[in-house]
């Protein structure tokens, strides 16, 4: 019953390995997108703004399989039993984070589709809150996955 996360069979067949692997992509993409957006705002640089947009696009896209595999892990590994404590907090914060990432992306998408519209400044506050949410959710996820445990 030994599980190797770098073994292809494990990655494909283990009941919640996919979530643990995929989750790193939207986290990294979103954090980088927010960093680029803040830099773009500060430096008034269109290239950085474009980089922020495309990172956000990918981050939002990745939330779909990540949420799906997270819910699948809940159903398969824990057979959908009622969650509580850290697991429940991770689920709720994860869902909220995914929604906020999409809201941030849609704000950028809207501004991009209507070149006359500039990006609203309040998005920066929203992005900062989203980074905090994603960070807390990721911390709980790391805690749950036992990355600090032995072996």
């Amino acid at each position: 019953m030994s599980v190797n996360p770098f073994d292809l069979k494990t990655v494909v067949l283990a009941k919640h390995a996919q979530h643990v692997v995929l989750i790193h992509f939207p986290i990294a993409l979103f954090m980088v997108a927010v960093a680029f957006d803040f830099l773009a705002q500060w430096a008034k640089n269109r290239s950085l703004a474009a980089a922020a947009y495309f990172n956000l696009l990918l981050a939002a896209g990745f939330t779909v399989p990540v949420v799906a595999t997270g819910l699948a892990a809940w159903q398969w590994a824990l057979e959908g039993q009622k969650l509580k404590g850290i697991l429940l907090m991770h689920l709720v914060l994860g869902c909220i984070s995914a929604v906020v990432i999409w809201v941030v992306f849609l704000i950028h998408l809207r501004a991009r589709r209507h070149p006359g519209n500039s990006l609203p400044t309040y998005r920066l506050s929203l992005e900062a809150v989203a980074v905090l949410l994603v960070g807390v959710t990721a911390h709980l996820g790391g805690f749950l996955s036992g990355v600090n445990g032995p072996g």
Partner: protein
Amino acid sequence: MRRVVSTAVLFAATFGVAFAGLRAGAGSLPAAAQQKPDATEVKIDNFSFGPAELKVPVGTTVTWTNHDDIPHTAVSTDKTFKSKVLDTDEKFSFTFSKPGTYEYFCSIHPKMTGRVVVQ
């Protein structure tokens, strides 16, 4: 005065020897008498089941207790038993009525494995 001192030294020496004998006597107790038989308890701590292998007679009830800050489960690979998610200090018990080897793992952390051998 000299007599009092020598009596005190003799008393201390006698007491010391007696105390050492007591300790040595305790050390020579049979191992089974020293070890508290607590074979039906599996402790979940630091992302591991302890003991990892447990040998019990048929009819024994084994209790898993989660001492970790992280939720864990105990699920047998053949689905003979399956705990709910155990938060800190929560317990799960199962009575083994058939002999055999029961491999189990934590479904949240599949690297955590254990075995109950029912004889």
